[in-house]
């Protein structure tokens, strides 16, 4: 299946842009980004707090079955215009990635389709590249773990 999401990360710049077209009216796309219950469903982490308003705060968390915190992030919403835009900060806790600034723009393409443009600005080029690599490295680790599991069963 063709991937609808596009990532634009120019070499040597401390920002990246994620764009995606949705088979959804812009109102539903916006709702999916501001309703805590819905965010939780598609982002795949717990939403401890999401105050969808200017100066509102939010907090995400992922806990493994043993109760260890695997991931925790928070941020502040700076500006929120229904069905148009959201400007917010994002910071992962306990990792040295620093705060990033996110500009989300919601646009109606037709009455039934919409587009999201997400510009993410990092503190440095190095931090952006590290962030980009995280799923790549995670994938490699997962593959290693899988391999270890398989090898264990062979013994």
């Amino acid at each position, binding site marked *: 299946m063709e*991937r*609808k*999401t*596009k*990532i634009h*990360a120019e*070499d*040597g710049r401390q920002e990246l842009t*994620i764009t*995606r077209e*949705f*088979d*959804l009216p812009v109102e*539903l*796309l916006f*709702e*999916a980004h501001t309703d805590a219950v*819905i965010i939780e*469903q*598609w*982002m*795949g982490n717990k939403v401890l707090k999401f105050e969808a308003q200017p100066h509102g705060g939010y907090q995400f968390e992922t806990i493994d079955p043993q109760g260890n915190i695997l991931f925790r992030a928070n941020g502040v919403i700076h500006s929120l215009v229904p069905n148009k835009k959201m400007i917010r900060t994002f910071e992962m806790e306990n990792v040295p990635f620093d705060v990033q600034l996110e500009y989300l723009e919601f646009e109606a393409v037709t009455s039934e389709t919409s587009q*999201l443009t997400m510009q993410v600005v990092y503190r440095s080029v*190095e931090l952006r*590249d590290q*962030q*980009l*690599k*995280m*799923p*790549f490295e*995670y*994938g490699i680790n997962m593959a290693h773990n899988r391999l270890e599991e398989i090898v264990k069963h062979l013994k």
Partner: protein
Amino acid sequence: MNLRRDVFQAIADPTRRAILLLLTAAPSLTAGAIAANFNTARPTVSKHLQILTECELLQPQQNGREVHYQLNPKKMKEIADFIEPFRNMWDDRFNKLEMIMKQRAKKKPD
């Protein structure tokens, strides 16, 4: 000593990125021609060339007494590909978002 250098570590350095960029413009250059583009000392540039060669981003070619450097397109493609998992992560999330919202729209017709 680093036995195997990380490609991403290699491109994290601005001078090394500049060297790669230089070689996208000129297909093949000697170490001297490359060094002429930088204010840094020649041995520093040589060190960068060595690192880029070790991680196979550059292919040195002996031409008589001179070594010419050129890009290794296969390895360069590997760098381009590392963005794929990041893209797939977001694409999976957005596919889920689309599915959830479609179901909600069906449930409560206005």
